[in-house]
């Protein structure tokens, strides 16, 4: 394991990939190794990209990565797609849009499923960010699923969060659920080659007028990945945001929120495993569910019993 960790820190591709697999599968030696990885992390700029399905997140990541490579930066990309809660499987197709970077040794792309029972971002995503960071990557781009809790959770991991919208979604802003519009450090209106861009920009601006609370004006960048437009402006805005965070000493605040979120996810995951996977509780829970079904018991009393056993 020590050998693997030192290879990871040197940036060895194979080692990084194997370490990620071990962490995803809760390998206890790998989890132990995260102590050292954690110490070496904290330098990379973590950029989260979220938005509705079909807004062009993957293509945008490809364009950004291409620009950052021109700057000589080392890039890590985490592409998250939903895990089926029924089969446990996942179709991880984000990479399709990024394959031109597949032979660039300074770009590492890893596809991951969401696989937590609780939705949102699996705790392993936090670990992959740290592994990439410790391996010397300068920029880490995380693409989230376009639905569910993960969209909003991304703000807990990322230093800079991009929310991507596209024209032609009807009353797009009004129907977009609470949270998504509030987490943006930068708004991106992609597919700017289509009609309706000005409307979307105007809607975002009026929403920002109503709700503006922070001292920083949230920029709106229009892009077209198809025509490679607006990307350098976006890179520039991301850079400005990073400088803003440094100047206002907000990086530490963000990091603290990240570690809080990670700790929470790990505790949740371990508790769920303890209660629902360990056989000593499983049987009792099955019995309790039967009793609830027969109206002999209510769900709250059942929960009291199980939690009472754990918290003893």
């Amino acid at each position, binding site marked *: 394991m020590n050998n693997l960790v030192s290879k990871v820190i040197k940036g060895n*591709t*194979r080692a*990084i*990939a*194997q370490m*990620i*697999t071990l962490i995803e*599968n*809760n390998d206890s030696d790998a989890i132990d190794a995260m102590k050292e990885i954690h110490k070496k992390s904290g330098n990379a700029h973590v950029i989260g990209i979220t938005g509705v399905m079909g807004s062009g997140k993957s293509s945008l990541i490809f364009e950004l990565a291409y620009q950052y490579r021109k700057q000589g930066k080392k890039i890590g990309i985490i592409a998250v797609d939903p*895990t*089926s809660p029924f*089969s*446990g*499987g*996942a*179709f*991880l*197709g984000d*990479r*399709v*849009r990024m*394959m031109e970077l*597949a*032979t660039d040794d300074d770009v*590492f*792309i*890893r*596809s991951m*499923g969401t696989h937590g029972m609780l939705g949102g971002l699996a705790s392993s995503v936090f670990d992959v960010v740290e592994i990439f960071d410790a391996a010397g990557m300068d920029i880490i781009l995380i693409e989230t699923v376009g639905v569910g809790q993960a969209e909003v959770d991304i703000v807990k991991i990322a230093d800079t969060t991009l929310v991507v919208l596209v024209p032609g979604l009807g009353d797009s802003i009004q129907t977009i659920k609470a949270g998504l519009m509030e987490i943006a450090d930068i708004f991106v209106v992609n597919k700017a080659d289509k009609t309706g861009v000005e409307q979307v920009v105007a809607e975002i601006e009026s929403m920002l007028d109503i709700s503006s609370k922070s001292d920083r004006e949230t920029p709106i960048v229009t892009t077209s990945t198809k025509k490679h437009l607006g990307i350098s402006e976006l890179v520039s805005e991301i850079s400005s945001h990073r400088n803003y965070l440094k100047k206002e000493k907000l990086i530490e605040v963000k990091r603290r929120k990240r570690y809080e979120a990670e700790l929470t996810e790990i505790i949740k995951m371990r508790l769920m*495993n303890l209660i629902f*996977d360990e056989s000593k509780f499983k049987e009792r829970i099955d019995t309790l569910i039967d009793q609830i079904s027969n109206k002999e018991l209510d769900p709250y009393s059942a929960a009291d019993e199980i939690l009472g056993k754990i918290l003893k």
Partner: protein
Amino acid sequence: MERKIRVLIAKPGLDGHDRGAKIVARALRDAGMEVIYTGLHQTAEKIVKTAIQEDVEVIGLSLLSGAHMTLFVDVANMLKENEMNDVLIVGGGIIPEDDVPALKKAGISGVFGPGTRVDEIVRFIIENVKR
């Protein structure tokens, strides 16, 4: 939680037909596997580098244009060069029966031509993944 099987489904070469590859990909997903799809027109180098980053246990190559003896074998050789000896390679598409022995010799463990039931592919992978 049992470790999920990670599979790379790749389309090497110039063949632009990926309906079959996507059907297999969906079947593997429904069988609980994590399936990474490369998209069309991939080179052996891109496929192998992707396989390394994604740390897959299985690579499924799909080709309908007849160039499998070159392209599949290229991928198999490149994997060997990169010491990826624990990866199960399977192939599908339009592959004449006569070519199957040579492909197996080159390291393609399973060849699934037209008419194969997807659950046969699923079962083959589960039974032959190198763990």
